[in-house]
C-alpha cells in the first residue's frame, strides 16, 4: 500500500525522466517561434505534456518503420509542431520518394492487368477468360 507521499515522489520521478529524455531547456517563459507561427492565444495555454505525447507518438511510428531509436529522437526534434501533426495520422499515405527503381512495379502491374483481360499471356498463374 503506497503512501500518498511515495505516490507523489513516483509521479515526480516519472515526469522528470520523461522530461529529461527530451532535454528541455530551463524554462525561460518566452513564447517560442513555433508557437508564434501558430498565432493562436490558446496555444499558450495548451498543455506541454499533450504536445510531447504527439511527438512521442510519431517517434514511435518512425521506430516501428525501421528507424534507429537514437536517430528517431533527432528526427522528431527537427520537426515543427505542424509537421508532427501532419505525420501523426498520415505517415503511410504521404508520398515517400524512393526513386526510379520503383517503376518496375508499375510495369509489372500493367502487365498483370493486361494478362487478366486477356491481351497478353505472360503469367501462367493468371487465368483469363480467353485461355
Amino acid at each position, binding site marked *: 500500500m503506497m503512501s500518498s507521499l511515495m505516490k507523489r515522489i513516483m509521479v515526480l520521478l516519472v515526469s522528470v525522466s520523461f522530461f529529461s529524455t527530451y532535454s528541455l531547456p530551463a524554462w525561460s517563459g518566452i*513564447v*517560442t517561434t*513555433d508557437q508564434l507561427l501558430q498565432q493562436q492565444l490558446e496555444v499558450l495555454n495548451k498543455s506541454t505534456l499533450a504536445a510531447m505525447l504527439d511527438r512521442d507518438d510519431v517517434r514511435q511510428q518512425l521506430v516501428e518503420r525501421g528507424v534507429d531509436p537514437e536517430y528517431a529522437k533527432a528526427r522528431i*526534434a*527537427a520537426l515543427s509542431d505542424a509537421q508532427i501533426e501532419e505525420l501523426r495520422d498520415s505517415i503511410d499515405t504521404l*508520398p*515517400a520518394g*524512393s526513386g526510379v527503381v520503383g517503376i518496375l*512495379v*508499375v510495369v509489372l502491374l500493367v502487365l498483370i492487368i493486361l494478362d487478366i483481360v486477356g491481351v497478353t499471356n505472360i503469367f501462367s498463374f493468371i487465368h483469363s477468360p480467353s485461355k
Partner: protein
Amino acid sequence: MRAVVKRGVRLAGALCASLLVVACAPYQAQEADPSLPLERSRELVGTPFFPQDRYQCGPASLATVLNAAGASVLPEHIQPLVYLPGNKGSLQAEMLAAASHYGYLAVPVPPDLDSLLQELSAGRPVLVLQNLGVEVLPVWHYAVVIGYDLEQRTFYLRSGRDRRKVYSFRRFLKTWSRAAYWAMVVVEPGDVPVSATATDYLKAASALERQHKPAAALRAYTAATRRWPDQPLLWAAAGNAAYTLERHADAEAAYREALSLQPDAVPIMNNLALALAAQGCTPTALAVLDCAIRQAPANTVLDKTLNEINELNNEAVDCRGFTCILPGADRQP
C-alpha cells in the same frame, strides 16, 4: 477466338484510356512569364552528383543540394536522417527538416514554373518531387533540377543514376504537376532564396532554433528582416533567437520593432517583458505586461511571466519606456 481477343483489346484500351484521363486531369500546360527577368538558359554544371542507391533518391538529392550550398556531406550520412525503411522512401517533411541538422536552411519553393526558373536563373539548384507513375499508381521520386533552356524547352536534372537527365518542359511538368509542384532549395543562414515567401522562410529558419542553433537562426531571421522589413513575426523571431543567446538588448530592440508593426501582439509583449526584466528594467517590463494582461486577462503564460519578473526585481538605469496601444482606443497624450 477473334471475338474474345477483340473484347480483350477493347477492355485494355478502355483501361489505358481511363488511366490516361486520370493522368491528364491535373496537368495544365504552363509557359514561363515573359516579363520575368530570366536568363534564356542556365545550367549549373558545378552542381555535385551522387548516383543514388536503391530507394535512396532522398539522401542522394539532399546531398546534392546541401553540397551545392557549401556543406560537406555524403548520402550515407543523410540516410539515417530521412530514410524510412518501412515505407522504402523519404517523406517531404523530413526532407525539409534534414538540412537543419547541418546548420543549413531548407526553404520550400512556391509551387509554380516561374519560381523554379527564378531559382535556377539565380544560380540555385532545386530539389523536386516527381510522380513518375500515374495518380492511381504513383511512383514518387526526388531529383535535382540543375538547368533549363527556354528556347529548347528543356530541363536538366541530376536524377537517380543519371548525371544529366534531359526532360522536355512538357514531360517534366507532367511528372512535377502530379507531385503538386513540390520543390525546395537549401541555403546558408543569411541567404534568402529569390522566390521565397516570408512565411515559408520563417518556418524554415525556426527549424534551426529547434536544433539549438540560435546563432544560425539569428543570422537567418536578420537577413529576413532586411528582405521583408514589415513582417512583425520575423522581428519577433529574431528577438527570440537573440534572447536565447542572452543578447537581451538586441532582443528588446527586435521585439519593439515587431510591436511597432503589430501593437496588439500579446505573445510578443510577453517576450519583450522578459527581455526587459533580464536587463533589470523591471518597471518597464511590468508596464508591458500590464498592457498584455489587459488584452488577455485569463492567460496562464502571462501570469507565470509576471511571477518571474516580480522575482527578478533588479534595478537598472538607461531603460526606455513603453506606450501601451490598446486596439480601438485613442492614444494617450
